[in-house]
């Protein structure tokens, strides 16, 4: 029996769809596709809510099970993991409505907002590292910003993930410092040197090819971002004198205005007494 190209294409499509027989989920539509699998919107019949189903070709073992246990406001909660009737593995996750970070920042230009996003990402990453989990593929496409500005880091990596060019550290084996590298690359994608040379320097330090020259942890990276936001000198940048003066002026603007006003009043009083 010969089969036409259109029938073959149909077969390709129907065999690609996950077989949800025996699960509590009904497939709605495909919403994303990554290196490790495909994400679908689905309806949980038992709880009457929509969820995101990530369907993977590889079994969920080891670290992936650890990922499923992560509980943090910046990490998309996983409701269930399992194996489908067709042998594929799946995660059922909270369905986040919002925008991917790379699309969100197109409409949100302020430096403080971008640094807020970085902080949320960094906090989620630091928590995961404390739990023994590394991301392995941090990039703007794997960060979602919700309707109320909440930030979710998604697609926590499993061993087979090799990272993404531009965000992947040069070392062959990925670990926490590789995530620090990716965090720097993420910051670099959000903030340019013309926005702030100090922030650009933080990104550059996180992305050093020599791992020993990077921040030793995500917390150290966030601490430097904190210093910048508080108007302090950052560890990553030995700033020029004029920049230091400007930063001092900016941090002590009220005091300097009071001093100027005091000097002006004293000056006026001096002349008034004379005449």
């Amino acid at each position, binding site marked *: 029996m*010969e089969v036409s190209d259109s029938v073959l294409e149909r077969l*390709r499509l129907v065999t690609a769809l996950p077989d949800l027989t025996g699960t509590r989920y009904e497939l709605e539509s495909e919403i994303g596709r990554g290196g490790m699998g495909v994400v679908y919107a689905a309806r949980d019949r038992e709880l009457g809510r929509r969820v995101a189903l990530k369907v993977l070709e*590889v079994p969920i073992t080891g670290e992936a099970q650890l990922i499923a246990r992560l509980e943090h406001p910046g990490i998309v909660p996983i409701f269930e993991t399992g194996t489908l009737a067709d042998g594929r593995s799946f995660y059922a996750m909270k369905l986040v409505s919002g925008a991917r970070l790379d699309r969100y920042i197109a409409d949100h230009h302020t430096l403080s907002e971008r640094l807020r996003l970085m902080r949320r990402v960094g906090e989620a990453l630091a928590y995961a590292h404390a739990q023994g989990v590394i991301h392995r593929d941090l990039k703007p496409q794997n960060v979602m910003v919700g309707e109320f500005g909440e930030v979710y880091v998604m697609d926590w990596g499993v061993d087979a993930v090799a990272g993404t060019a531009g965000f992947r550290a040069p070392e062959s084996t990925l670990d926490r410092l590789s995530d620090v590298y990716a965090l720097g690359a993420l910051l670099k994608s959000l903030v340019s040197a013309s926005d702030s040379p100090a922030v650009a320097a933080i990104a550059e330090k996180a992305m050093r090819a020599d791992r020993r020259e990077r921040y030793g942890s995500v917390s150290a990276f966030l601490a430097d971002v904190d210093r910048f936001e508080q108007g302090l000198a950052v560890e990553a940048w030995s700033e020029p004198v004029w920049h230091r003066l400007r930063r001092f002026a900016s941090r002590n603007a009220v005091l300097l205005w009071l001093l100027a006003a005091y000097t002006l009043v004293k000056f006026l009083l001096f002349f008034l007494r004379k005449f």
Partner: protein
Amino acid sequence: MDADTAIGGPGGRFPSTHVSLIEAAASGLSDAAMDQVIALYWKPVYRFVRLKFQKSNEDAKDLTQGFFASALQRNFFARFDPAKASFRTYVRMAVERYSANQHAAENRQKRGGAVEFETVEEQVIATESPELEFDREWRRQLFFLALDDLRVHCKQNGKDVQLGIFEDYDLTDGDRLSYSDLAVKYGIPESTVNNHLAWARRTLRALITERLRGTTSGAKELHEEMRRVWK
């Protein structure tokens, strides 16, 4: 261009010479493994040769047979290094080199003789990418073979109703029977039609995966090829 060969299509229509080719191979691969490789790759190689070197049906068949015979004699498939490329790419590049050498040898023999002009049709076909056609034919062949496996599996396991529903619903071009029509036709509830269809699709997917497993080097390449099939 004359019509394509039916060799390498579904239904076990491989020439018996393939068995002897496999038997003659001084390879470390088992006969069954070689059988799978040739079943999947004979037609893509043939189509690639036809398009790339604008061969007639008979010439392309000879060249394809020659390629597999040479590959088996030289233990070519056993020398595949998965670190360098996928097996599919390895085969395509090898057949390209082999055919180019054969093509050049033929042209040397013909030199000084009458010049052969391409027909208009051949020139048009030649503008398509043979590499893309190779991959397309590979995917098509994979589904053909898995469909054959599914039919055999259903017949051996008394799943004639499942197969019938699947063929009526998924293998029909144009208007197809609805679930309720199929329920009436086979005298079963609609929900069973749904379950039977899901079973057939699931089994077909598993059979496709098995075919791929037999022609890839391991889990990594298998998953990459699965992505290529279902991307």
